[in-house]
């Protein structure tokens, strides 16, 4: 069964550094998402992406964050200048486009900012 893949599984970075989290959504899916989960807290929506542009974003997704689909397969989340509070699990997800179909999630990237 096709799956969403995320790399790396764990990323450690120093405060102020830029990080890029990578995702390969399921190939025929059209809608892409980033969620994050801070340890012990709920899964929070960051941004959705469709047709090569952001369709919605949350208040968490400030100017430090950006997303890109640089080619036909990758979907990336960039954090320009990481802060300690950016430490979390970041999940990429995708759906084909049926509005009542569930999201397919990757296994996440654990980002640790020191």
């Amino acid at each position, binding site marked *: 069964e096709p799956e969403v893949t995320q790399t790396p599984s764990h990323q450690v970075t120093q405060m102020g550094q830029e990080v890029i989290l990578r995702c390969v959504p399921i190939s025929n899916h059209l809608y892409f998402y980033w969620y994050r989960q801070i340890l012990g807290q709920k*899964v929070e929506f960051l941004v959705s992406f469709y047709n090569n542009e952001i369709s*919605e974003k949350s208040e968490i997704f400030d100017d430090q964050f950006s997303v890109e689909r640089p080619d036909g397969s990758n979907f990336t989340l960039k954090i320009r200048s990481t802060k300690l509070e950016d430490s979390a699990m970041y999940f990429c997800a995708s759906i084909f486009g049926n509005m009542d179909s569930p999201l397919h999630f990757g*296994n*996440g990237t654990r980002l640790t900012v020191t």
Partner: protein
Amino acid sequence: DQQVKQNSPSLSVQEGRISILNCDYTNSMFDYFLWYKKYPAEGPTFLISISSIKDKNEDGRFTVFLNKSAKHLSLHIVPSQPGDSAVYFCAASSASGGSYIPTFGRGTSLIVHP
């Protein structure tokens, strides 16, 4: 603001017994509800869903009940098995506006004892 609430952070059940996980929501525009299951070091995986036009949906050992007037849904697992031990997330979304961005609860950690 917690639009989707899972008030029990954990639940412990004996193997073979029923597990009941509860979820409350506040947004009356939500019309599609999902349960995801999450094992450690993995992303959430879709378990079962229900649309607001139904009050029950069953899939094998898993049944979701929806009480729209109470804005409450529950997931029943019968019989519970040790492999069901995981974190269960309730999620809700609204088809209005054409977007599909589920809002997640904080999760309930289910432990099924042999």
